[in-house]
C-alpha cells in the first residue's frame, strides 16, 4: 500500500497540482497579452452610444473603470491579488456584467451544459463503441455496413452545418421540435415534471445533433481498435475453441479495446466544463459555450479566467480520477 501511495498516488497528485498552477497562471497571462482593453471597450461603447463625452470626462471615466474593475496596479500585484481571491473561492466580478461575481455566472450556466453534454457524451460513447465493435467484428453484416457508410458520410461534415440542417428540417419544414432555447419565452424555470418535459423537448434536437457526430467519432475509433484485436492470438484461440461469437466480442474484444476509449471518455467529460460553443449558439441554448463566447467578445478577463480555470480543473481532475481507477480496468497496471 505504502509503495502504491508513494510511487503511484503521490506523483499523480503532485502532477495534478502543478498542472492546475501552470494552467491558472497561463490563464491569467494570456488575456492580458491581448491588445484589447476592457476599459477602453466600455469607454468606446459609451462614446458610440449617443451623446458627446468631453475629453476630461473620458480621462476620468478611464481611471474610474480601471479602479473599479481591479485592473489598477502592476500585473504582478494583480496576479497576487488574483491568487488571493482564488484561494478564498472568489473569481472576482465579471467585467462585462459588472459587478456580478463570475462564480454566479458560472453557476447559472453550468447546469444547462451538464444537463445536455453529459448525456450526449455518454450516449455517443456507448452507442459508438458498441456499433464500432460490432462493425469491426462482423465485417460482412449488411446492416452494420450501412451504419458504417452513414457514419463515414456524416462525420466529416462540420458540426455547424449538421446542426443547421437538423434545425431547418425538424424545426422549420417539419416543425416537430422547437427551434430555439431550452424552453419557450414565458416559461418559468421550476422543478416540475411539466418543465422537465419542456426542457427535454427543447434539448432533443441539440442532443441528437451532438450524438450524431459524437457516435461517428467513437464508432470509427472502436472499429479500428477491434479490427486490430480480432487478429490477436487470444481471439483466434477463443474462436478455435468454439466459444459463442457474442461472448468473444463482449468478453475478449470489447474489454481489451475499451482502454483507450475510457481515456478518451474521461477527457471528453473533463472538457464538458467549457461547453459546446457552436451547439449553444446555433440552438440558442444557455450554457457555458454561450458564456465563453460572450466573455471573449467582451474581453471580459475575469470571466474568461473563470471558465478556463474550470476547464483546466475539469480535465486535470478527470485525468487524475482516470489514473486512480485505471488499475481497476487494466490488470497490467495493478501488477506494475
Amino acid at each position, binding site marked *: 500500500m505504502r509503495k502504491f501511495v508513494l510511487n503511484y498516488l503521490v506523483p499523480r497528485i503532485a502532477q495534478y497540482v502543478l498542472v492546475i498552477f501552470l494552467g491558472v497562471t497561463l490563464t491569467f497571462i494570456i488575456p492580458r497579452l491581448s491588445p*484589447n*482593453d476592457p476599459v*477602453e*471597450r*466600455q469607454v*468606446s*461603447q*459609451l*462614446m458610440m*452610444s*449617443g*451623446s*458627446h*463625452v*468631453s*475629453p476630461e*470626462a*473620458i480621462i*476620468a471615466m478611464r481611471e*474610474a473603470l480601471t*479602479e*473599479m474593475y481591479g485592473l489598477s496596479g502592476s500585473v504582478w500585484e494583480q496576479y497576487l491579488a488574483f491568487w488571493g481571491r482564488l484561494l478564498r473561492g472568489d473569481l472576482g466580478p*465579471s*467585467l*462585462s*456584467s459588472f459587478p*456580478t461575481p463570475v462564480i454566479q*455566472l458560472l453557476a*447559472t450556466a453550468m447546469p444547462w451544459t451538464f*444537463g445536455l453534454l*453529459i*448525456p450526449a457524451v455518454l450516449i455517443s460513447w456507448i452507442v459508438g463503441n458498441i456499433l464500432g465493435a460490432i462493425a469491426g467484428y462482423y465485417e460482412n453484416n449488411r446492416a452494420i455496413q450501412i451504419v458504417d457508410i452513414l457514419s463515414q458520410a456524416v462525420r466529416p461534415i462540420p458540426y455547424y452545418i449538421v446542426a*443547421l440542417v437538423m*434545425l*431547418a428540417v425538424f*424545426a422549420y419544414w417539419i*416543425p416537430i421540435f422547437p*427551434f*430555439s*432555447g*431550452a424552453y*419557450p*419565452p*414565458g*416559461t*418559468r*424555470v*421550476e*422543478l416540475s415534471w*411539466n*418543465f*422537465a418535459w*419542456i*426542457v*427535454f*423537448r427543447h434539448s432533443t434536437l441539440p442532443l441528437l445533433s451532438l450524438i450524431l457526430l459524437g457516435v461517428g467519432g467513437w464508432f470509427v475509433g472502436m472499429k479500428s481498435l477491434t479490427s486490430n484485436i480480432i487478429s490477436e492470438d487470444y481471439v483466434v484461440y477463443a474462436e478455435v475453441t468454439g466459444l459463442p461469437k457474442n461472448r468473444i466480442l463482449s468478453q475478449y474484444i470489447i474489454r481489451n479495446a475499451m482502454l483507450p476509449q475510457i481515456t478518451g471518455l474521461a477527457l471528453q467529460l473533463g472538457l464538458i466544463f467549457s461547453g459546446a460553443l457552436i451547439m449553444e449558439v446555433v440552438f*440558442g441554448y444557455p450554457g457555458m459555450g*454561450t*458564456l465563453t463566447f*460572450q466573455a471573449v467578445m467582451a474581453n471580459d478577463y475575469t470571466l474568461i479566467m473563470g471558465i478556463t480555470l474550470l476547464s483546466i480543473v475539469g480535465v486535470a481532475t478527470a485525468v487524475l480520477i482516470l489514473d486512480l481507477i485505471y488499475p481497476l480496468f487494466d490488470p497490467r497496471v495493478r501488477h506494475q
Partner: protein
Amino acid sequence: MNRYTLSRREFLAQLGLVTAGAMLTACAGPAAPGGPAQAPGEGAAVSLAGDREIAPGVLRSETLILENPTGRVVPADDFNRWRPGIQSASTGLQQLALDALWYIDPDAGIDGVWDNSLAAEKPIYNEDFTQVTVKLREGIYWSDGVEFTAEDVAYTVETLKATPGMNYNGQFNKYVASVEIPDRYTVVFNLTEPNSRFHGLFTVRWSACFIMPKHIFEKQSDIVAYTFNPPVSLGPYVLKDYDPQGDWYLWERREDWQRTTLARFGMPAPKYAMYIAAGPSDKKVMAQTAGELDVIHDIAPEGMITLARTNPTSKGWFKSFPWAHPDPTLPSVIYNNERPGLDNRDIRWALTLAIDIVRVAMASYRGAATISAIHVPPTGLYPGYYFDPIQDWLNNFTLDLGNGEQYKPYDPEAAQRIAEEARKSLGDMVPTDPAEIRKAIGYGWWKYDLEAAEKLMRKAGCTRNAAGKWVLPNGEVFKIALMAEGDTRPVMNRGAAMIVENWSEFGVDASLDVRDNATRARLTLLGEMDAEFGWTVETWGGHPDLFFFLESWHSSFYRPTGENAVGRNRMRWRHPELDRIIEAIQRLDFDDPKGIELGLEFIKLAVNEMPITPIMSYNVFSVCDERYWEGFPTAENPYTNPVANWANTKYMYVKIKPKA
C-alpha cells in the same frame, strides 16, 4: 408466471426516462424573484376564445413580442441603467419602464419631432447659456405610488456627478456647477460654462440620461453594485417576470398607466410586452413565420426577402423594396486624413469616384440601401432639411481635374440605377416611380468614373508602376487596408469588400482588414488605420441640429494619430472653416432655423474636402408582423422608429391596435 410487474426492457426504458427527466430538471436555476410561482408557458391552457397562453394568464393576443437585439442578457437580474456596461437596457427597460425629460424622434414623431416627456416644456436657457431651467410635469407617479418630482431629477444629476464610474459622471462634473430646486416641479442647472446643448444629455434619441427614483436609490449603500431589481417604473409598464437565463422579459401594463407621461397619447394597447433573445437571422424568420415574434429588430436582407415572399403579414418600413428603416447614421469610408496619400483632397476624391455605388449597394444590401452623397444620413426629416435644398448646388458642383479641366461629379440618377439593378433579381417588388425610389433608395451619388479618378490621381502627383498600381509622389506604392466589421454586421462587411474590389480594379493596392469590434474600436480610436468602413456621423434624425456629432469635429477635440480620438473625429480632419461653422451653431438656440443654413455650409465644405466618403444610411430591417397587431410605424405613417431597442419605440404602444 412473471414475478415482476415490468419486464427488464420496460424497467430500463422507464429508468432512462426518469433519469433524463431528473437530469434536465436539475438544470433549473433559481426561480426569478418578484414573480408569482407559475406553470410553464408551453402547453399551457388555451382560452375559450381559442387564444394561446404564452405564460400563465398571459394571452398571446394581448402580448406584443419583440426582439431584444442584445440577445441573452447576462446577468439577467441587473436593471441599474445608470451603470456602464448594463446589458438589460433593451429588454423593455428603457422603452417601457424608464422616462426622460425630452424625446426627439428620429422620424416624424407622434406629435411632432420634439416631445416634452417628463418636462412640461422645452428647456429654458438664460441669455449666455450658463443656466437651464426645467419645468416638470405634475401628476406623474412611479409604479410604487411615489410622485415624480424635481427631487428625482436633482438627485439623479448630483448622484451621478458624485459617483465615479457611473454613466454621465464625466459630463455632469464638466458641465454642472450646481442644481437648485426652487419648487417641487422646477429644476435649475447652473452650468460651469456656456452650453447651448446641455439638454441633449437628457434628450432621448436612442437613449439618454433617464431619471432615477430618489426614494429607491437613496436607500442603497452602494449604487454602483445595486441591481435595481425589481425596477420601479416611471413608464406605463412594470416588470411582471423574466427569465433567469436572460432570454425573455415580460412587462405588464400598469393599472395606473394614466399617471405616466405616455398617457397623453392614450392607453398603450398591449396588456403585455415581451422582449426576447431571438437568435440569428434565420431563426427570426422562422419565429415570425410561426407567429412567435411580432417585431424583428433587424435581419439580413435575405431574411427580409424571404419574409416578404412567404409571410404576407410581415411588413417593413417601406411597403415593398427596400423595406428597411434607414437609421440616422451614415456608414462611410472614414479615411485617416493623416496618412500619406489620404492627406490629399484630390486622392480622397479619386477614391470616391472609383467607387461604384450600384455594386456596393447590391453587395451590401442586395440593392436595399439608401444612399447619400452628402455628409448627413438620408433619414428621418433630413431629406427635407438638407437633401432637397442642396440638389442644385450638387448638380453644379465642380472638381478641378488638373490643367484647368472642370468636372461635375454628381450623378443624380444613381438611385435609379440601383433600382434597375435590383429589379433584375427582385422583379416587381422594386418600385419604378422615381419619387418612390428617391424616398426609399435615396437621391444621387457620385459618378463611377475611373477616367476622372485617374486625372485626379495624376493631379496629386501619383503615377502607375509597371504592374499598373498607383504610386504616391514619395515613391511608395499607394496601399489602403480598409478596416471593416465581420459577422456582426454582414452588410457592412460585404459593402467594404466591394469597395476594396472597386479600388483594386482602379489600381490601388487595397485590402480588406476585418477585425472584431473591440479591436476595431481600439485601432480606429488610435488612428491606427488607413481607412475604416463605419460611421462617425449620427444625427437626431428628426431634428436638424448637427451639433450632435459635429461638436467633437471641432479642432479643439483633435488628437493626432497614436492618441485616442475624443468623440467622433476618428478621421483626424481639421479645417478653420469647419471650426467657424461649429462655433456658430453652438452660439445658436437649438431650434434656430439658422442652424440648417449652417448645416448646409458644413455639407458644402465636407463635399469639397471629402474627409470621409459618405455611402448610405445604416438600413435596419425591422419587420413588424401584423398577425396580432396593426398600426406599426411605416414610411407612410412615420410617427416613430420601429427599431425595437430604441427608447423612442414607447410611442408605438399607443398607436398599435389589436388585429380585428
